[in-house]
């Protein structure tokens, strides 16, 4: 059941320049699944909207979120100390359909701040016995979370400046290493997701991509965060769908990005 609740900060640290790892103690954790997100509310009253942040890991009692400081709101959140409480709205979004991935080889691709949710997915895939290889795309050699991926699955790295792994994008790393799979799961910046969609189409692969958009309510009421769809959406009855409810994970074939 979605709800706004108070969570205790168990751990909060900067794991790379401008990238923070936030671990919250909350009963929402047991409802989480990979690909979902939660909203973190800033405490400064001038900031009225929650910040939607993907789930990097979850167990019975704690949620881990790894986020980038992108503006005033996340800057404020990055200052919260362990032992403090913070209000969150969760669990939001649909998440990856693990059933649909069973019996297939998965390539999970994360780009930039799209990397954290793929770690939670990697853990779930491992637990479900689904073959998975991760390809992580960074700007440079600040390869946050890489070691944690290596504990879960085969892990390849690409960096735009060539200072770590393959020089270029996650797709360059796939080609260079001759990686093959039946399904792609991806989260990252829009140019990456567009390229992934095209690549999957070319190769005849299934692709599930996680989209991001500015949102207000997070629960499907405001219709702020929509994406264009090929078919008429069942809920909206027009050719767009709510990222916060029907997404953020979509079959790449069904969305126009």
């Amino acid at each position: 059941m979605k709800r706004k609740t108070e969570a205790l900060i168990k751990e909060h640290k900067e794991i790379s320049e401008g990238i923070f790892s936030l671990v919250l103690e909350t009963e929402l954790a047991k409802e989480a699944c990979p690909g979902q997100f939660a909203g973190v509310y800033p405490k400064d009253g001038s900031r009225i909207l929650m910040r939607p942040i993907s789930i990097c890991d979850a167990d019975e009692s704690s949620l881990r979120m790894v986020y980038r400081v992108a503006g005033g709101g996340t800057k404020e959140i990055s200052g919260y100390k362990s032992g403090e409480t913070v209000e969150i709205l969760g669990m939001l979004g649909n998440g990856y359909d693990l059933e649909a991935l069973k019996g297939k080889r998965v390539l999970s691709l994360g780009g930039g701040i799209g990397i954290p949710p793929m770690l939670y997915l990697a853990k779930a895939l491992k637990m479900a016995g689904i073959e998975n290889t991760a390809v992580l795309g960074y700007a440079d050699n600040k390869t946050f979370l890489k070691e944690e991926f290596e504990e879960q699955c085969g892990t390849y790295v690409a960096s735009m400046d060539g200072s770590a792994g393959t020089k270029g994008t996650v797709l360059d790393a796939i080609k260079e290493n001759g990686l093959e799979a039946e399904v792609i799961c991806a989260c990252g910046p829009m140019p990456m997701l567009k390229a992934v969609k095209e690549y999957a189409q070319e190769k005849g692969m299934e692709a599930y991509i996680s989209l991001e958009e500015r949102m207000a309510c997070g629960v499907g009421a405001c219709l702020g965060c929509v994406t264009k769809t090929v078919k008429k959406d069942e809920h909206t009855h027009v050719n767009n769908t709510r990222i916060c409810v029907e997404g953020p994970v979509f079959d790449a074939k069904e969305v126009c990005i």
Partner: protein
Amino acid sequence: MKLSVNIAGVELKNPVMTASGTFGSGMEYAEMADLNRLGAIVTKGVANVAWEGNPTPRVAEVYGGMLNAIGLQNPGVDVFMERDLKFLEAYDTKVIVNVCGHTVEEYCEVVEKLNDTKVSMYEINVSCPNVKAGALAFGQDAGVLEATTKAIKAVAKKPVIMKLSPNVTSIKDMALAAEAGGADAISLINTLIGMKIDINRKKFVLANRTGGFSGPAVKPVAVRMVYEASHAVKIPVIGMGGISNAEDALEFILAGATAVSVGTANFTDPEASMKVIDGIEAYMVKYGTEDIRSLIGAVS
């Protein structure tokens, strides 16, 4: 202690509603908030056919509030009746349908379709700043507003609330025009037209360039306008604009509002409206107020 208020013959159990566009049709919030507690639910704008709305980004946070340019995306009145209205029938609250259109005929078509339903009232959206044809055009000229109100009143079998725009020179003139057109009530304010610019990209933040500004920061403007409008007309006024707690709501009531709507605050807290109701009760206990109606327009 009496919290109920009456608007055009419709008895609300308390004066607190949800503002159009911020609460979906209630469905989206039903698992997080007790809809039965609300005086009324005002639905998101409904048109005669489905509207796609504007390109994204559609929302942006600003200091003390937000901008939105959704563009009145909605599934159309037929789907709305079949799905959303059916859902709402299970709840013990009044349903006010916000009606939008590009032309007077479109507004009337929606109203006529809803005439024989359990809907309690219509709120006519003549004040959306994010739709190019129509909408705001009906709400910025007193003559047009009066004529639009008359046309809708001629077909409506339920009370008509005209929702006014704050983006006018004289809110008093607009309130009087709605009243002259036969409106049963007015509601205000809709959002103020705003803009946000990303200085690093040198781009507009919203795809629509401009958007409706709402949230706590707009409250003083809204309170002033509700005061002016309610002192100009005899019909009831529903006040809104930046209400996020009971203190805010009480300012509107004291300014002259018979009822209030909680809007953007729903995004900050899905139970904001319920907390407003609790807070109004606590205020009445504190000051020994027997009947909420004694507070309406009681500022001096």
